[in-house]
């Protein structure tokens, strides 16, 4: 025994190395290739251009790409130094590298936590009392995004979260909050009809609720189908939107309101779940929804992610995937769905494939009127920013980094983040048609945040620029452009703004004139729209 023991460490090393090699080989064999899928995206999109006689826009330059990818993956604009580094990087593969870096950054988790929360808990926007329950949801979605949990598992966890879990009786600090998606159920008051409507919209891309009250002559879904689907949630109860979630495990049927009709759970494809003893109806539903061969799930998901990056879905609107509302590129949608399912519902794989495509990397500058139809994706559409993107980008521009500094520090300097967020909570149907309201314009022109952001003492960026002894006025203006717009000024802009600063602007004071320049940049459409 002792003799053999001597060899063991060596053998262990050898085995480890072999395993590692094998694992690497296996991964290379099976890991889905995002670049290849990106190429397939371009091929489908280009085929449609040819058919429609479209001349596509140019590819985005580094500045346009960098700003877009930061907003889309990290939910904020890049800092001045991040912009400079990227511009100076000669590596032809630098776009891919920045994508990889951002997908691994805390910004990715922040941003997509916001994306999922507003998609899955839209009730939060108009019910302040729900904010508390949302903390648990936030903790949950963040940890899953950080681990890149496969999307089917994410949805499964959400649908099957155990009810009857005791909630802490008093508010606990967010970092001690139990991570649970239970707020999804409580925010919908645990009503089967609300949950049916929400899950069908979100996970299947179907607006089932039109059938809630009665049959529409032309609609695909019938009232009985709606309530049979809702019956999967028949056992749930809650005492109110902030109450506990309870479940009567045996209950699997419900009565269609205002009728005598008792219905049990039936999947939307008409099949009835098999009675298999212990599994709850929600588990059965989760199995069906997230199955590889579910006809809706993968398509609905890739369509939502497409919308996330292009501002408009391949099926538009994203939750109306019906035969009478066909996708703009049916083959592409099918191919994306298949690849996404084959990747094991890997969100980062899907995102990589989309953002590495040339289609995503088109400029938003129009060069030909044939680019006008947004459903042909011949130029990148202008997308409205979410409230969080606006606020976090403002923080970055003024020199406070939202994702690195504790919230209360920024709040102390710039006032209530929630107040600012509330101003930008407008509901828009399509993000490519986001509308600026008069009140938003007024808030940005005269409101407290911008006034402090352009205050020589409170704004870190501005103070640094004004006081920098080694920068001349041209460089100062350039730095403000990089901070706010992630690009250098054009020669014409540089000349105009430098003259303004040198003349001291309206007040005859070049420091104040620099504040004016910063104000102008932060109020511009270029700052406030993702382009």
């Amino acid at each position, binding site marked *: 025994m002792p003799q053999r023991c001597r060899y063991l460490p060596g053998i262990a090393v050898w085995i480890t190395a072999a395993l590692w090699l094998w694992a690497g080989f296996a991964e290379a064999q099976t890991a889905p290739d995002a670049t290849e899928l990106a190429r397939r995206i371009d091929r489908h999109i280009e085929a449609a251009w040819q058919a429609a006689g479209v001349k596509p826009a140019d590819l985005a330059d580094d500045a346009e790409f960098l700003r877009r990818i930061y907003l889309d993956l990290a939910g904020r604009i890049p800092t001045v130094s991040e912009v400079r580094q990227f511009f100076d990087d000669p590596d032809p593969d630098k776009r891919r590298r920045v994508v990889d870096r951002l997908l691994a950054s805390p910004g990715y988790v922040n941003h997509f936590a916001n994306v999922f929360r507003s998609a899955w808990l839209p009730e939060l926007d108009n019910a302040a009392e729900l904010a508390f329950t949302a903390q648990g949801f936030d903790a949950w979605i963040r940890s899953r995004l950080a681990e890149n949990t496969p999307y089917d598992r994410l949805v499964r966890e959400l649908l099957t979260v155990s009810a009857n879990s005791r909630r802490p009786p008093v508010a606990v600090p967010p970092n001690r909050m139990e991570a649970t998606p239970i707020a999804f159920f409580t925010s919908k008051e645990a009503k089967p009809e609300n949950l049916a409507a929400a899950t069908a919209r979100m996970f299947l891309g179907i607006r089932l609720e039109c059938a809630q009250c009665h049959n529409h002559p032309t609609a695909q879904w019938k009232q009985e189908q709606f309530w049979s689907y809702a019956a999967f949630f028949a056992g749930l109860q809650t005492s109110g939107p902030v109450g506990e979630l309870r479940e009567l495990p045996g209950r699997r049927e419900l009565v269609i309101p205002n009728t005598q009709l008792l219905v049990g759970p039936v999947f939307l494809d008409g099949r009835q779940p098999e009675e298999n003893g212990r599994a709850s109806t929600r588990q059965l539903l989760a199995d069906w929804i997230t199955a590889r061969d579910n006809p809706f799930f993968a398509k609905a998901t890739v369509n939502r992610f497409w919308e996330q990056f292009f501002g408009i879905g391949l099926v538009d609107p994203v939750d109306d995937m019906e035969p009478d509302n066909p996708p703009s590129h049916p083959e592409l949608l099918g191919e994306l769905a298949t690849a996404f399912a084959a990747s094991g519902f890997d969100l980062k794989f899907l995102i990589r494939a989309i953002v590495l495509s040339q289609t995503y990397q088109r400029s938003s*500058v129009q060069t030909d009127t044939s680019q006008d139809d947004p459903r042909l994706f011949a130029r990148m559409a202008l997308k409205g920013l979410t409230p969080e993107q606006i606020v976090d980008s403002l923080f970055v521009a003024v020199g406070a980094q939202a994702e690195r500094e504790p919230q209360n520090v920024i709040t102390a300097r710039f006032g209530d983040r929630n107040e600012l967020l509330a101003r930008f909570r407008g509901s828009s149907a399509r993000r490519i048609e986001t509308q600026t309201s*008069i009140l938003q314009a007024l808030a940005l022109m005269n409101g407290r945040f911008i006034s402090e952001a352009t205050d020589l003492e409170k704004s870190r960026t501005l103070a640094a620029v004004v006081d920098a002894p080694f920068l001349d006025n041209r460089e100062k203006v350039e730095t403000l452009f990089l901070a706010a717009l992630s690009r250098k000024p054009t020669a014409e802009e540089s000349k105009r703004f430098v003259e303004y600063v040198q003349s001291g602007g309206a007040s005859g004071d070049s420091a104040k004139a620099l504040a004016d320049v910063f104000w102008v940049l932060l109020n511009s459409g270029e700052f406030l729209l993702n382009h």
Partner: protein
Amino acid sequence: MAGLLNRRDWLRMQAAGLIGFSVSGWFERLAAATADDPQRRRSCILLWMSGGPSQLDTWDLKPGHANGGPFKPIDTSVTGIQISEHLPKLAQQMKHLAIVRSMNTREADHGRATYLMRTGVMPTGPIQYPPLGSIVAKEKERPEDEIPGFVSIAPFRQLSPTAFQPGFLGPRYAPLIVGESSMLLGNGQGQPADLDKALKVQDLDLAPGVVPEQAARRIELLDEMEGRFLKQRPGVSSLSHRTAYEQAVRMMRSQAVKAFDVEEEPSSLRDAYGRNLFGQGCLLARRLVERGVPFVEVTLGGVAEMPVLGWDTHQNNFPSVQRLCEVLDPAFSTLISDLRDRGLLDTTLLIWMGEFGRTPRINNAQGRDHFANAWSVVLGGGGIRGGQVVGKTSPDGMEVTERPVTVHDLFATICLALGIDYNKKNMSNVGRPVKIVEKNPQPITEILV
């Protein structure tokens, strides 16, 4: 896109105006001179009952039938017309109102019905139809207007966000929103101080330390620098950004925004409207109409203890409706008398409606559910011959038995009352001209003056 050409010149002009911050004063004079001016343009106030109010417990009672519920009908100032006992003050204003009891609209989903009743069209296909407010704002606009032609007070947009956007008419006709419910939640909706603040346009004053000359230079620079960006990227988002800034600058410069200072009104009048968001919102609507704003809507979606979807009475219909009527009755009736006292009633069309009515059958939770087969809308004021009832429902309230009215009929009637040609076509976002009201409507001519 028309108007974009001289936008730049216009903004410069505005910027120049900002330097002097001059007070032209013509707007206030206009407000004072209102009543006798035969050229006074017509305005419209829409009282929007978000959530779908019960017709059976307000305007079309069914006493003696099981569907009727506990509320009793009372006589009104017009012989033969009875309404709910919980609308006693409105009963006294009946001669100014025409009740349409025979709405038949078929759509009973909140979101789709909200879109339908606000735009006159079902939400299908790619065309983005404008809501009534945007239509009226466009038809009645004058170049000298300083406040947007469509003001929406205390809206609850979540049921159908697009029904609160200007659709193919473009951002110029987007509503100016004040008193939105999400901004009031959690901070004491009933408090008068908050109410006054909530009903004002926020951030109209320059930031502290910024002088008018500086603000003017900033705006001038902004206009210059973003012109290229927006021009290279034509579309709704860029146009909307431009328009919002343009309108915001115009309002910053305007004296007309004093209209939003409801605290200028006598305390007794404010009490009469009711010291709540809807009551003070109706008072604000009068002040705006008085200053020539063509379309103002005030949403009543709830009361302090149930701020949204109050009318959506699937449970406990009766106490909820009673509570909402306690807010509605004084506000609506005072609005009528106040407009009349100021000589504005003849030129101001009043509309009371929600997205649908409620089921006649009372459900097991003492509630009423969504119902679009047979329900009521009320019109009054300018252009309407009041003291009338149009249409009739069956004794159980389930069917319209006389003069069914579609959404197209209603919209055509509204247009006629406002002097708008409803056959006029506007260019839609898909490049096809669309009539203001489609489908050959039959307007309710019997209630038109």
